[in-house]
């Protein structure tokens, strides 16, 4: 039986109390936190072009169909 005792003592349990971590996660509930990536100049340009196109083109849906995007 000494070997089995040895195995138990050689595998220590978590050194710290993990309850505070679990409690924090429980308080958070099932909420999903969305973290959006920082908006760079490429993303800003793409959005400006998209919004500008929609504003300038008289019939955006027909335009998108003509472009093969819809």
């Amino acid at each position: 039986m000494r070997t089995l005792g040895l195995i138990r003592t050689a595998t220590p349990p978590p050194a710290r109390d993990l309850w505070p971590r679990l409690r924090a996660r429980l308080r958070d509930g099932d909420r999903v936190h969305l973290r959006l990536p920082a908006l760079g100049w490429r993303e800003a340009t793409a959005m400006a072009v998209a919004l500008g196109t929609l504003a300038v083109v008289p019939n955006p849906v027909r335009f998108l169909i003509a472009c093969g995007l819809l």
Partner: protein
Amino acid sequence: MPVVPEPSDEALFAAYRAGDAPAFEILFHRYQPSLGRHLTRMLGDPAAAEDLVVETFLRLHRHRDRWREGTPLRPWIFAIARNLARNRLRTERLWGWLPLGQAEDLREAPAAYDEVRRRVAAAFAELPAAQREACSLRLLGGLTLEEIARVTGAPAGTVKSRLFYGLRRLRALLADLSPDE
């Protein structure tokens, strides 16, 4: 003075489901050592084991309505932990294939282990996966043979055989560390 018996795991969980929040904390503290030890041995990484101890109880909380009163809780808790550990190991293997250069290794350095710990870890690593899991569940998780069968989904006879051969191998590998045996 009469000794008041401690409430069973099932009684604590039933109380938690009925709205007794502190019962969950008692249950968690009851399982943290054994679950932590078992997961440390299965993952070989104490930090990852801590994550999964927390995650296991988070799942237990989320799926608390699925538990049917009268069914034993311990096999269910260890089965949740088992699935999480398997997913983690699978993901680690996947990441291992990706050419990410030198990934930062946050695991405890082997040098930090003392000799006995290193030898025990090496002995477990030598066992086939099924034997390693059965031995860890028995020795570190404290599960009975029937509970191990429930957790792993293997017949009791198979679990018995895994334990027999696994423990025999562990004893042989660690014989020089406990010469009085």
